[in-house]
């Protein structure tokens, strides 16, 4: 029983955001700012898969798409104790990540596929649902916990009203969101060291032939990126807590009377 977890590298928001800047020529985040790590929701998806495996068995395979250097996230997955890690090697920006991931999953056969609900950079949240369509399997969103197996999987999903449990059979794709039960484990130092030596399987995108017989799915093209100018000038209250509270109360009353 394979659980695939699709992961990618994204900006580390825990690094300082003070110097955040977009390079005007490349439309990418300024190199001086950028610090990368595994995307926050992808890491949670890994945690959900690993919790299942630790309880009920099976094997967890982390998958990522990118150039040869993109193996950092896969080593992180190994450090968290994933069983396998695969890099779908591609530098072609015209092919959708979901299509390549679908080809990667097909290479190994069926299973269930987890991914983060959205990324902290592009933040489109399309990889999971698009992957389900490319694989032609059902999709469930905002899963926080999985159990069961084979023909009776139970997914606990966050909804706008609380939670619901959905039952379905394998194969399927699920996007994962955060809950107090799935905070990612912190790898042990020993496992971090071992992860550097672990073997990463590489699949060349060209040999996978995504979407046999069909042209690649169309993608949007980025024309420019920029940091919008925000015009809020922050007025700081002064004086004792009493005086500050009084000034705040005054401000709040004024604002609410006008509204």
């Amino acid at each position: 029983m394979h659980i695939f977890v699709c992961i990618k590298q994204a900006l580390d928001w825990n690094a300082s955001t003070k110097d955040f800047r977009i390079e005007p020529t490349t439309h990418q985040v300024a190199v001086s700012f950028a610090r990368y790590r595994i995307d926050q929701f992808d890491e949670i998806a890994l945690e959900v898969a690993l919790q299942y495996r630790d309880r009920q068995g099976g094997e967890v395979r982390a998958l990522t798409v990118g150039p040869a250097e993109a193996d950092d996230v896969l080593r992180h997955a190994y450090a968290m104790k994933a069983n396998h890690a695969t890099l779908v090697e591609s530098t072609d920006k015209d092919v959708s990540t979901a299509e390549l991931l679908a080809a990667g999953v097909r290479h190994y056969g069926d299973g269930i596929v987890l991914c983060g609900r959205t990324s902290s950079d592009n933040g489109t949240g399309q990889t999971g649902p698009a992957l389900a369509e490319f694989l032609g399997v059902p999709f469930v969103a905002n899963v926080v916990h999985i159990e069961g197996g084979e023909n009776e999987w139970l997914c606990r999903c966050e909804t706008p009203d609380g939670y619901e449990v959905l039952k379905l059979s394998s194969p399927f794709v699920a996007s994962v969101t955060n809950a107090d039960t799935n905070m990612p484990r912190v790898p042990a130092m020993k496992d971090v060291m071992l992860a550097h030596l672990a073997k990463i399987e590489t699949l060349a995108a060209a040999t996978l032939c995504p979407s046999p017989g069909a042209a690649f799915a169309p993608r949007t093209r980025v024309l420019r990126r920029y940091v919008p100018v925000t015009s809020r000038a922050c007025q700081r209250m002064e004086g004792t807590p009493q005086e500050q509270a009084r000034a705040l109360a005054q401000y709040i009353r004024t604002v609410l009377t006008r509204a």
Partner: protein
Amino acid sequence: MKILVVATPRDHCGRIEELMNAAHAAAQGCTSEIHVLGTGVAFDETIAQAGADHVYRLDTPLSGSFYPDAVVDIAERACAIVTPALLLVTGDALGLQVAPRLAVRMKATYVSGCCGFERTAPGRLDFVRPVYGGKALEVVESTAPLTVVTVKAKSFLNGERRPTAAQVQTLDFPVTAPSGAITRVQVDAREAHVGRNLEDAAVIVSGGRGLGSAEGFVPLHRLAERLGGAVGASRAAVDAGWIAPTFQVGQTGATVAPDLYIAVGISGAVQHVAGIGAAKHIVAINTDEEAPIFGVANVAAVADYREIIPILIDELTEKTT
């Protein structure tokens, strides 16, 4: 340009108005036809008054089947009838899972969380959307005949809509869940009533990691009650287990647009700020003088909330009774 607006079972009147504002914003400066498909709920009147040319009603209730699958299926059939160049869906939990699937099926491009349109030349339409958790914006162009768009909440609150006399047509698609494989076995709406009104609240008092504990929310609840508002939380407070996820405001929680947002002990991580950009007034209370939240607040107090909030409640009570 033909635009198809897909109203889902979760769209209430306000959301449909936002979608219609978005459709009219996209259509500005060109001849257009706005078609609206109501899946599962009849909001015909709202839609007709919001300036649609054609309204398709679907009288079959979706409650018996798995919503998202049914919505993808119905929208796909409606596309065949309308042949739109642009398809708009609300960017809520349902829209965000439905739209990308539809885009793959229709060989369309997908624009997620669109907050604006740009027309730089006649016949050309580009899309503005937040990236990096709302820290930056990007402008993208579509490369396909159909673009599927999820509309970011609170981005099209106002708009000019032309009055139209909508033609209402009833569609009788058979509604079946195409996968047929997903069944809902348990609904746990335990926390449903709490935090539900966050997106529509006029006043929100929100707490973050700086509160230090679950008990820290007690004075916040009192202040919210005093102001007739709702309580919200940052992801840090939710992750710490101090409050239920339904209270979460930010990129991964609710997108809010209150008249007044009071951020208490919230540092102002980009993901949180992404969810409060539409707030009219932001008040920040934090002991950390360097907290990034001060960069987006209108007024700020560098103070301990335990000290200042009880006084603030007293001040507001005295002056209003």
